[in-house]
Structures are given as C-alpha cells and as structure tokens.
C-alpha cells in the first residue's frame, strides 16, 4: 500500500501507525534529541557570558564559556548514548476491568557494558519514570495504562525518553507496535442475586435428540456432529454455525444473558453480567453465558471465567487478536 507523501513523513517522524515489530532495537535513526527548557536557559546564559567576555575582552571568560559549552556538548553525547542501542524484547498486554489500570509488561534489554539511567516509558495516558537498566541485563517494566472503557485497548505509541545525565538535553524515541490489552466491563457493585434458569425442562436431555431446547448458536469447530449444524443459517450465507443445547441437568442452572439482567442500557447489562460471572466464580457455580453470537456452555473455573469475561469485553466490537 503506497501512502501519500505527507503520511509517509508523518509515519517516519511520529510513528502514527503500529508498524514496528519486536524485538526492536532503538537505532540512531530513531533517536531524537533537543535541549530541555533548562538546556535552553543554560544556552542563553552561555550566550550572555560570551557577550560579556567579548565586551570586556576576558580571556578567562571565553575559557569558562567554552568549558561549559564542552560540558553541554558532552552531555548531548551521553544523553544520546544512554538511549541509543536499547532493545525492547517484548511487550505483553494484560487484562483489567474498566476504570482500572491495564498493565503492559515491557521487557527491555541493555546490551551495553554500562548501565542506562533515568529512562522514562510513556504513552499518551501513562508513564513510568526512573528506570535504571543494569549493564548487560534485562529489565521488565510494567506500564499501567488507565482503562476507561471496556474493549480492546491498544498500547498505542510508546515513547522512550531520557534526560540523563544533567537534564540539559532530552532524547526520545517512538515505538509503535500492535500490542493490545483487554478491558473487561466494570463489574457492577452489589449486583442482584444470580438468575436461575427455568427448571421445567429438566428432563429434556440434549443427547436425547437434536430437537431439544436450542439455546444458541456458535461457530463450527472441527469435531462437532454434522447433525448439530444449523443448516438454515448456513444456507442464508452466515457460515457454519452449530446449535447448542442446554445440557444442564436439574434446576440451579445459572444462565447468564443480556435479558436476564433486566436493564435497559447495554453497558449496564454487560456490567451486571460481569459482576455475575465473578459472583458465580466465587461461589464455584457452573453458569452459561449467552451473548448475541457467542454461547458458553455451563462450566466454571479459570478457563470459563476468562472466556466469559473476554466475551463480555469484546461484545459488539472487534474480535480478540492473539497477542
């Protein structure tokens, strides 16, 4: 795909799109460096000192100015060297509930035989400062990004910045990888009791026939019986879907779906469902989850919890990509 010139420049300068891969080595071409505010003030003072030296023909004044200029220049090189050559090995996106912080775990490697000091990792919303990398070692940094709404949270453009050693220069590099984290809906505080599915059809066994209670459709997985495929849907061009059936025996079957919440707004519904999932998990109760195009059969445990929360997080949004 060939982009317009100005977009290519923007990408080159500001890394607006996630096109970088991991592991990523911070090369000299990707390091930007400018004086800080204090650096500019220092330069201004140097200029004034130079003017005074010229005016009064102070040889030692010149010498002092140039000594400080040398210091300023040496600081430039050290600031640059502190960042260049750093390697970002991998970035893992985590999960969290909405209105919490989503931890991104970033692994940095310092190949140099000198330590790197005072690094700062930041995105538009979050930052971690005072990172010190010991010589020839890895270091894992957790960047907590505030998550305000449920769904997929891309890390976005990561900025590695440092003004070590004297704070006269600031030097940074952008890294934009496609790493993302998952934000579950914020669980409702004090949710009502878990809804129980109607138990009158308890004798209907799903294995008894394919005419049992169809509780939902899910996408075809290899190994599903051909008889359970919803051919009508397939004929409508909706792809291979499989009918699922209530296979819980007896009452006490917790069936979670949007209707059972009895709330009008979708986010509130998801929020309550989330709270119920957590509640069910804490009570070790098996539950089913029925969303528009997803159905989880009754179970409980870590896997079920993850799947359920994932389904709630990505409801009506882009599917989860493996990270």
């Amino acid at each position, binding site marked *: 795909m060939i982009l317009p010139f100005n977009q290519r420049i923007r990408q080159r300068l500001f890394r607006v799109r996630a096109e970088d891969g991991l592991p990523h080595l911070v090369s000299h071409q990707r390091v930007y460096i400018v004086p800080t505010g204090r650096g500019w*003030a220092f330069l201004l003072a140097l200029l004034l000192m130079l003017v005074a030296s010229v005016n009064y023909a102070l040889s030692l004044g010149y010498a002092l100015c140039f*000594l400080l200029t040398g210091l300023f220049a040496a600081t430039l090189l050290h600031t640059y060297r502190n960042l260049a050559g750093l390697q970002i090995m991998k970035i893992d996106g985590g999960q969290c509930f909405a209105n919490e912080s989503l931890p991104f775990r970033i692994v940095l490697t310092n190949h140099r035989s000198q330590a790197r000091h005072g690094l700062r990792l930041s995105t538009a919303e979050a930052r971690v400062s005072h990172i010190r990398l010991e010589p020839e070692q890895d270091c894992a940094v957790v960047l907590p990004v505030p998550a305000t709404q449920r769904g997929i949270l891309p890390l976005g453009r990561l900025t590695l910045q440092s003004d070590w*050693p004297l704070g006269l220069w600031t030097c940074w590099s952008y890294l934009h990888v496609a790493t993302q984290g998952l934000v579950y809906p914020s669980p409702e505080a004090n949710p009502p009791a878990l809804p129980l599915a109607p138990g009158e059809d308890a004798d209907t066994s799903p294995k008894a026939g394919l005419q049992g209670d169809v509780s939902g459709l899910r996408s075809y997985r290899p190994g599903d019986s051909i008889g359970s495929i919803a051919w009508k849907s397939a004929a409508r061009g909706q792809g291979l879907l499989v009918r699922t059936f209530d296979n819980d025996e007896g009452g006490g079957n917790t069936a979670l779906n949007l209707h059972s919440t009895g709330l009008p707004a979708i986010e509130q519904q998801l929020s309550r469902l989330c709270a119920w999932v957590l509640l069910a998990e804490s009570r070790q109760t098996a539950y089913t989850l029925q969303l528009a195009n997803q159905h989880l059969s009754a179970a409980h445990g870590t896997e079920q919890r993850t799947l359920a929360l994932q389904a709630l997080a990505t409801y009506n949004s882009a599917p989860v990509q493996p990270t």
Partner: protein
Amino acid sequence: MDARTLYALAILLLLVQLPHLLHLPLWVSLSGAILIGLRLALLKNPDRKLLGTLLSPLSVTLLAVVCAVLIKVDYGYFLGRDPCVAFLFFLVAAKFAEVRQPGDATILLCLAAFLLLTQYFYSQTILAALVTLPAVIALAHALAVLRDPENPAQTREQLKLVATLLIQGLPLAALLFLVFPRLPGPLWSLPEDAAASTGLSDSMSPGSIGQLSQSDAVAFRVEFDGAIPAPRDRYWRGPVLSEFDGRSWNVSRRLLESRTRYQGPASDVIDYTVTLQPHRQRWLFALDAAVSLPRTDLKSGRLSSDTTPNPAITGQSAPISAELQASLSRSGQPLGRLMSDGQMLAGSAVTQLLRYRQSSVLLDARPASRPPPDNTLFLPGVNQRSKRFASELRASVPSDAAYAQAVLQHFNQQPYRYTLQPQLLGDAPVDEFLFDTLAGFCEHYAAAFVVLMRGAGIPARVVTGYLGGEMNEDYMIVRQSDAHAWAEAFIDGAWKRYDPTGAVAPSRVEQGLSAALPDEASVPRLARLNKSWLSNAQLRWDALNHQWQRLVIDFDNESQDGLWERLGLAKPQLWQITAIVLALTGLWCALVLGVPRFSRQQAAAEERLWAQLCTQLRKRQLPRAPAETPAEYLERAAQAWPAQAWRLQQLQEHFAHLRFRILTDSEKDRRQKAVRQLLRGLRWSLTRSTRTTTP
C-alpha cells in the same frame, strides 16, 4: 525543594561567591552569606513561621529592592560594572533564599554561572582560574541533582560522572578557545565602567604606575579657555608622596592647607575646565601649579538642564548629580582644598562625574611658604649603597642645584633603560634599580632621584599625576596610560620639579608613552632572566604568571594568526577553519561515544584463533580436508589424539558459540580467553606427547 538539591545549590553558591568577597563591600558579602544561612536554617526547622515569612518571595523581592538602593548609595551610581556585580551577588543569594520550584533553580543556576564569570573583571590570574574549577564542578553537580532529586545515586558516583563529562568536554573547549574569533573592542560600555576601578592611589611602589599605564581608560577631560600648553608642560599634579618606608611611597598623613596666593601677572594664568571621571579617591587634578581652588563650573548649571550639551564630553558620561552641584554652588564653597604640598583634595571621594573650573600657572618651581617637613628628608635603613653614592656625588659638586643636574646626567649617561616591564625588585628596590638592573619605569626613576636627593641631605618628594594628554577636536583627553611620577626637590627655598624620566627617555616627556616604548611588548621577558634568578621561587611564580598572561589572558587575533601560521596555514579562509573545526568536532564525538566496534573485527578475533588451531593440527600432520566442517575436523583430531579429546570437544563448543550466537561482550571475552588457554594446553601436551613417543 528537597534538602539534597538545596545543599548542592548552597555549595555551588559558596564557591561562586568566594572570589567576590575580595572586592565587594563587607555589607554585601555579609548579607549574601546570611541569606544563604537563613535558608538552610529554614530547611532544618521548617516550622519557624517568622523565618518562612522572611524568606517568602515577596519579602525577598523587597530585600532586593532595598539592596539595590543601598548599593546606589554606597557606590554613588548603579548602572556600572561594579555595582551591577554587587547586585548580582546579592540577587543570587536572594534567589536561593526563596527557591521553591525547579524553574527557580534553573534561574539560580544561570545567575550563578554569570556571577562566576564576573570575577574575571577583577582578576584573571592562575589562581582565579583554579578557583573556578570547583565551582564549575559544583554547577554540573547541581544540574545532575536537580534533574532527578529522588535519584538514589551516590554523590561520589555523580561527581565521577560530572568529572567525566567535564574532561570529555575539555578538548572541545580548547578547540573553541583557540579558533573562536576574538572580536575587537567593547560592544558597549556602561557609563561608569571606564575609570571606576583604575586610577592613581595614595601609595606608590615599584610597578604600580607601570601597571596603571596599561589601561586606556580615560582619567579626565579638559577644555581650555585659551592657549593649550605644550606637551612637555602638561604635568597634571595628583597625589604627592612624601612618606617612604624603603619600598613604597605614601601620602603624608599630616597635611596643611596652603595659604599662598598667586601674585604674578594675570597673563600667565591658564583657565580651563576639568571633567573628572569618578576614581573613588579624593584627588582633583590640575596643571602644575594650581593657583586657584577648584570651583563649580558656572556653565555646568546649564549643563544639567541644557538639552544640547557637548556630546563629545558628556555623551558617554553619567549625568552629574544636580543636587550636589546645586548645593555646592548655593553655598559658594570651593569643591576642594589646596594643600601645602600642592595636591588638591575634594571633600569626599569622587564617585560621580565631576566638573570643575581651575586656574594654573605653568611653573616648574613653587616658592614654599613653610619650611619642608621632616618626612621629606627621612630615609629608612635600607638602600645603603644609594646613600653612599649620593654623599660621594654631592661632595664632588659645589651646589644642590648642580648636584641635581649631576644626578640627572648620571641617569642620562649610564646605560639606564626605560621599560614598562622591569624586573622584579627585592627588599632594597632603589639600590637594586640604581646599580643592578638599570631598567625601570617612571616610578623607579622618580623614587631613585628622591632617594639620592635625601641621601645628600636635600628635602625631596615624589609627585604622581599625569603627563600629557591628547587633543580630540576642541578638548583634551588624559588617559590612565598618561600616568606619571616625577620628583620635587627643595633647593634654594623653592620646590623645584625634576623629571628624571626625561633624562632617560626624553620622548616620554615630549611625545608620550608609546613613543618612548615603541616595541616593548615584543621583548620576551624570560630572555632577560639569567640563571641565578631562576632559582628564586618568587621569580618563577612571576614567570609563570607572565606566561599565563601572555599565552592565555592576552590570547587574541594575532595569537590565532600565529597559530595558523605554525600549522602552515597562513591566513586560512573561513571555510577552511570551519572544515577543520567540523572535522575535529567529529573526531571528538567519535572518541567520546567510543569508537564503534565493527563486528568484522570481532569475527576476525575468532577466525584468528581458529586459524591458529588449524595451523597447530596441520603441523601434526592432520590438515583440514576440503569441505570438512569444523565439527568433523575436530572429531577426526580427537580420534587421532584420544587423550586430547576433551580439549577438542570444549574448543568445538566455544567456537560454535562464538560464531553462531549473539553474545554479550563479557561473555565473548570469557570464551575467547578460554579458547586461548585450551590452545596453549593443546600445544603443550601435543609437543610433550610427541617428545615422549618419538624415542
């Protein structure tokens, strides 16, 4: 502001302010130190309400205003170099007292850096340069602390870092110092700068006037009402020095006012107006001999109100204090008094531009109304050789006047030299000058003449002042470089002026300093030193200082041209200089960043070791077959020498790692070292095994 930052800043300020204590008024130094102390006290006890209020931004600003007013009162003016430095000194301490935010600290650091520079206004000696270094380190350290106050890094670690940065910056600094073009002349000049710190003082020792003569600063300007006196008559009388302690000359402590009035013809009187630059002393200058008291210029009343004053005279000058003028003219009192030894003293130190009317008669002998005071005959115990010489010479001539002429002839006929850079003199300076060095500036000749007079029992004294002055359009400028010293001897009931300098260098009297010393600067000082002097540590220090002055302080455009010439680049073009600077800067960057390690070179190290191994095995009749992998080759070798199998195995593993893995530097070093050791072991055991098996 946390304690760590504050202490770093306090140390910086201490080091920056230290050199200034030498020249600042005591109250400024003290108040600066007290403010810093108070801030540190507040840091220890943050609960003290009173202290907190005192060091709040508002009250500190008030303090600064008060200080500015006090400085104006103390110095007499504010917009000059010295009061501005004093104010900056106070301002730095005040800023420290109220520093709260990192931004405040930035301003403080910049002010401190500038204050560090201003010490060179007063001294550019080696010592001054050495004092700067700790301050620069403290400045960089303060920056490092300020960058990250919570940084757990140790102070030692940070100082090491800062020292590294400074040392690495040094080559670039040296390069800039050598090639940065030196712009000629001042870009501007603050009104009071010119003569604020230079001028004649109340004492004279060998070298003091010579030093003064190196300043181009204006001493005063003169407008003559009528004819302008000839150059050799332009003796401007200043401090008269009668007290002698064997080395230096001082103003007599007991001074009486002169009561004589001029009685001669009015046609000889020269009337003129002097515009005196503030020199912070009490002397007023007049052509020798003054016949009136200095009085307020009648025209000066107009001067302060006139919208178009003479720009040539007042253009660069501070406005005359109208109040002072008004009060003086109202009271009708003269601006100063005329003393019996002929010097004129103002009521207080002249700290502002002063204009006065003066009348003089050109006389080289002034009748004395009183007998000469005892101190004009006093000679301390030193300078015995001069005393002997004086009494012998006096005995050979009939009269005092003839004796004075004989002394002048002695100066004229013996190989005396007139130089701005005489050798340093010891405890009996007059003896050494008269009989050993024979080289001196006007103060040496005047002092020697007076000593010889007193040695022969003739009352005599040294007169300092200015000789000369150049006309600029319709007025005369007298500069510090015209500073001069001459002698007066009491002969035949009158004080007669003798200028021994004129006997040695007549052109000094007739045409001025530069005519008398056409190529003084080109005489290398060290060439005149002989070996016995080099043993003298004091002279060595002097020589070192002289070199410092010549190489560092006086480094200018000419020195730069000389530098290029020595490099074989006579008058290089700007682009050539730029190219050289850029190339050297690039080299510097590469050196500081560390020469990049090329992976090819590193591979070469492993390949060399592998080649060594192959050579070794080939020598033992086991050459590597074509297309044989290293692993296969070493396996074959292990079969040939089963005892060495473990070594070969290890070697194979190391080589595999070195070649095919990305290793850290230390790991690489470790493995290479192990390979070398294994190779040595292999060689030794193979040699031994062949030796044992061959027989």
